[in-house]
Structure formats: structure tokens, C-alpha cells
């Protein structure tokens, strides 16, 4: 499955299709010219339609904690990307990347993440892997 995702994910990237991640609403609120990378722990995985939100607690340099929300597609697209709700329980250490919001709030369009040394990419869920005929 992962081999198939890698093959099709790379194909999608080469076709420039991966940019169509906001299939349900316009992506006007995100700044796709910027990428943030944060390290923290999973607070909650809201596995919902039409969009899922991964909430991650980030400890700031002064010891305070900011909760960031990373938006991805809904459950069916995440399943196709090989990302299940049970993969990211609360407390899971994570390094995550996203396009931040333009208005300064701690929200972001989720690009990818590293969990337990493994890279996961929610946008691979748009890869079309055909059933065997």
C-alpha cells in the first residue's frame, strides 16, 4: 500500500494536482507562500467531514502552550492516504508542517508530518489507486 501511495503520490506531484487540497472550500484563508514547521504533541484528532483537524500542543520558549489546528480532508481521503484516527492518539510526539493562516491565528493547512520517524502525507489521499480488475 505504501509503495502504491509513494508511486501515485509522486505522480500527482509531478502533475501539479496536489495543490487541489481544499476540495470543499476555497483556500483563501491560508498563505500558501509560507510553510511553518512545529514540534509538539497531539492534543486531539478531530476525524470529521468535511474536514479533519489535528490539534497539536506546542510548548513556547516561555513555557506556555499554544494549541495549533492543522486542517486536512475528511476521513475517507485520510483513509486513502493511510492515515487512520487510531494512528494519532493524544500525547503522540509529532513534527508537522503546514501553510499558516493569513490572519495570525494558530491554524494551518496540513502539508505533512513525521511521527515515530515515519513521514505521513494527508494529501496522498487524492491519489487514485485502482482496484484489481
Amino acid at each position, binding site marked *: 500500500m505504501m509503495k502504491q501511495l509513494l508511486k501515485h503520490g509522486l505522480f500527482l506531484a509531478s502533475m501539479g494536482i496536489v495543490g487541489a487540497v481544499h476540495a*470543499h472550500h476555497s483556500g483563501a484563508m491560508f498563505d500558501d507562500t509560507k510553510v511553518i514547521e512545529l514540534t509538539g504533541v497531539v492534543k486531539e484528532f478531530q476525524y470529521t467531514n468535511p474536514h479533519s483537524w489535528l490539534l497539536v500542543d506546542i510548548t513556547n520558549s516561555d513555557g506556555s502552550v499554544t494549541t495549533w489546528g492543522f486542517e486536512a480532508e475528511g476521513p475517507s481521503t485520510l483513509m486513502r492516504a493511510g492515515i487512520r484516527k487510531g494512528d494519532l492518539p493524544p500525547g503522540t510526539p509529532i513534527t508537522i508542517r503546514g501553510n499558516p493562516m493569513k490572519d495570525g*491565528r494558530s491554524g494551518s493547512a496540513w502539508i505533512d508530518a513525521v511521527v515515530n520517524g515515519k513521514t505521513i502525507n494527508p494529501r496522498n489521499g487524492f491519489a487514485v489507486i485502482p482496484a484489481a480488475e
Partner: protein
Amino acid sequence: MTELKAAARLSLLGILLVAADALTAQEDWLAKDANWNEHKTRLQAFGERFENAWELYTYLQETANGGKALTWEDMPKPAYNWSGVYTRTGGGLSFDPDIRANETTAKLTEAGASARQRKIDLITSTGGEYDPLSDCRPPSFPRWATEPFLHEFVVTPNQTWLMNEMVNDVRRVYTDGRAHTLPEDAYASANGDTIGFWTDGMLVTHTTYLISGQYQRGTQPDYSDQVEVVERWKKVDGNTLEADYWVFDPVNLGEPWYTRQSWTQLADDDNFLRLRYWDCRENQNNDILEKNDGTSQFSDFDFIENDAAVSTDEDVRQAAE
């Protein structure tokens, strides 16, 4: 005598030309293969022979001698077994999957071109837009054909159901021989009223009584509430459904718009894929507001204590008041 022979030859030639025209008027299913550009041109030209969608549909129905009535015994046959979980094969957010989403092959009227230009201008000036789908309104048909996410298709002898997970969207195609709802009883709706028939393993449909909409957001054209569509669905191999679409819209289209739509059955070896309920109100973080400049914004995150105090967006602060 010579003049009579010449006249006879001319008459025969005329008969042959009419017969040849009749032979090519019934356009067969054409494969999306190496000759697709030529095939697509023929299918576009075929649609242009007709004044409206109903004329095309009735022509196809008459040449199919009314179509074939299916029985439950037909259901396991490959042509009618559309089981499995599908998604759109490709095309992104372009109604014509052969081209990029910022292009169109539609032959637009002046009104249609103006409507599209307004969308281009909005995106150019603001960098974004507001899509009515953001609050879980249905995409409406024919935009339905361009939406991604999971699909299921169920063929029965008297009805075929075409389902998209997004907003729990189901189109029902009645194939039991019934007519459309009478005009005096009809009203416009997102998916309209669809009837159809089967011929040679293909499902031919006609859809009317639709609301206005857009083929997709971005720079895809708009359609009016006069839009009508003829589809011709076919299972072309073990995991692919394709459909000819001829869209007629006298407001926005100078000619019918032909495209070939396609859906691929997805690998699902562990039976994990399934269509889930789709409701924007299940998660507060999916609440989208339409900004005063015509673009989109999240209104009120549950992981931020006071959005208005943090956001630099005036619309967010106004929404909080």
C-alpha cells in the same frame, strides 16, 4: 434520354448522401484511446446536431427502439455490476477532465463569457472566493460530476443511484419508463429530475428542472436554471465507469458542451473505505463565513479561546460581535 440518366444518377447520389448522414447521426460509443482527440471532436459535433438536450435524448431513445428493460437476472453481468467504491479518475476541479482547471472548452455565449470573466476578476483582485459548498449546500448538477471524494453506484432494474459521499448526495435515475414530472408540477432543484433507459449495456439519461450554479469554483463557467444534460454511462473495463456528457444551456453556452467524465474503482483490500455522513455542523472548526470581499474565512475555532482578539481579519471580529 441522357438528361434523364443524369437526373437519375443525381437522385441516387442524393439518396446515398442522406443514408450516409443517417448512418453517422447515431454516434456509437467511442473509446478514450490514442484517437481520443478525433473521437471527442466527433462527439462534440454529434451533440451540435441537436437544438436541445431533449431532442438529443429522444433521438437516442428512438434509435435504440426505446431501450432494453433490465431484470434482476441481468444484475450480475459485468455491464450492470457497478459495485465497489469509486472516485473521479482525474481532472481535478476542471469540468473537462482533459484540460487544466483554469481553462475551458465550453463555447460560451457573451453572457457566459462575462460571467466567467467576473469570476476571474474576483480571484485576481482578492486572491480567493467563497464557495457555497462551504456550508454543505449541494454542488448541484452538472457540477456533481466534477466533485472528488468517494462514490458508489447502484444499478437496479428500475432505478440507478449515483452517490457521492460529499453532502450525502444521491442522484436517482428512473429507468422504469416513467416520464419527467409534468411541467405544471415541477420545480427546480439541485439534482433536478432524471429519467433514462438502457441500450447495449449503456445507461442513457436526461436531466432537467435544475437550479443555476457553476461547473466548479475558480474560473470554471456558470450554468443557468435552463441547463439540461444528456449522459451516456458505460462500464468500460473491470474498474472504470465512463460517461459522455452533453450539456445544453441557452444562457451560457452557444453550443452544447461535450465532455467525457470518468470514475475509477479504488483498491480497498482491507474493506476500510466507506462513505461517511457529511455535515458541516459536526465540527465547529469547519464553520466558514463569507467575507465582505467575496472570499472565505474560518469564523470561530474551538482551539482558540478568543478568535476576535487574535485575528487581524475584520470580518472575524465582526462575526464575533
